[in-house]
């Protein structure tokens, strides 16, 4: 009689979970980037008068980072190899990246 062996799947470890995210990551990044660039390319910039900028002038619409993010940008710079193009530092000024 054949014994059926139950193969118990172990709970995915955190590393395995991140490996799966990482596998999809470049695809997700590419999709988001293409969507953003396509969206922007498809939209021809309009001439918006100052009195029409009620939405654009909202504090949350500012293209720059919030001031409260300054230390967050620092610790992300220290803990990862990449830097710059995000309003934060790109290297130098401290014993970090």
């Amino acid at each position, binding site marked *: 009689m054949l014994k059926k062996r139950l193969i118990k799947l172990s709970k995915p470890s955190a590393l395995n979970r*991140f490996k799966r995210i990482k596998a999809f990551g470049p695809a997700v990044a590419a999709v*988001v980037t293409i969507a953003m660039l396509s969206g922007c390319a498809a939209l021809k*910039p309009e001439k918006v008068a100052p009195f029409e900028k009620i939405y654009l002038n909202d*504090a949350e*619409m500012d293209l720059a980072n919030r001031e409260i993010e300054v*230390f*967050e940008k620092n610790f992300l710079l*220290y803990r990862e190899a990449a*830097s710059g193009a995000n309003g934060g530092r*790109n290297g130098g000024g401290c014993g970090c990246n």
Partner: protein
Amino acid sequence: MRKITLAMAAILFKTMLLFGQTTDQEYEKKKLTLQEASIVSSYYQQDGNNSAVTGGEGTEELTDISNQITIRFSKQSETGKRHDFTFVQGVDFYTSASSDNIDRIDSSPSRLDVRTYPLLSWQMTNAEETRGITANASFSIEYDYTSYGFGGGWWAQSLDKNRLFSVEAQIFLDTWDVILPEELRPPGYGSGGADDPLPIDQEARNSYNLSFVYNQVINKRMQVSLLANPGLQQGLLSTPFHRVFDRDLLVMTEELPDERFKIPLGINMRYFLGKSFIVRLHYRYYRDTWEVNSHTINAELPIKINPQLSISPFFRWHTQSAAEYYEPFAQHRPAAELRTSDIDLADLTSTYTGVNLRYQRLKGFFGVENWNMVEFRVGIYDQSRGLDAQSFSISTGFRLPE
């Protein structure tokens, strides 16, 4: 005759009015006055088990309390040019368990450290607010690192303020105190401690950065920004007290190339959705000459509860490939000339999730009319290499009427 006299009087009167009128080019001169001030404080803690001080294995426990105060003054000349002066003073208090292992005794000089960093910047804007130039100078000091920074830039925007282009150059001339792991110091070489009379070496690290930014209004609800931030670093780019173990468990110092060129490219997008939702997106691609490639996506969704209060959940995802010279603990070839086990340079993926709460009040808080804004931000950082971190920040702003 009377009609001719009246006509000549009318012409003369209008001519007098013409010369008596002030032109649109005259501006009121304004003295240097305080415009706004803000304070930001942050508490950060982390833990993991891949410390570079102990070769890629060991505690990464660290706590950092950071504070920054920003003050901006402004004046205006008779020609309408505005001069803005901003002073920033930052101070960080941090404790690092891994730094305690440089000397492998409890009283290492860097167990508890303070970093202080002032910055002064100036910006001149023309009367039409279409052109400007900037300049800045900064300084930073911590127990083993001193930095002198300076930079300048130029920006221009269209009359309708729908397009803006800026370029900025920033240089940092930094100096490392070369503090080596205890067991790797030559005879007569000091520890770097304040009470140690033995000398240690100093090495330079210089950074040269350019920043290009282009902002474009797309329509009444959307605007985008393109960013490029190339940078070149030269000098001592490794961290002197990081250890590296080879496969035979022979300990060495970290050695990295003395040059690194980085090219990060980014795009920001802001979109006001409906009446109450805003979409804030950011994507960055990064590549450097150490073979690190990375992708980073930030997504934030501010929800305007009312004109004064907004809540913004956010999510950040980041992935990077390993630097060419990285190997985990005890994996390096014995003869490797360039080597690091710094987990920051490893292949990894991370997420950073949290929420931002912002409350603005024109009439001020608690009877203080100029106290206009309070903001809270909390986030949880999770990294595939086992590092976990939490961050809590608070910001408050004061604005004086112009």
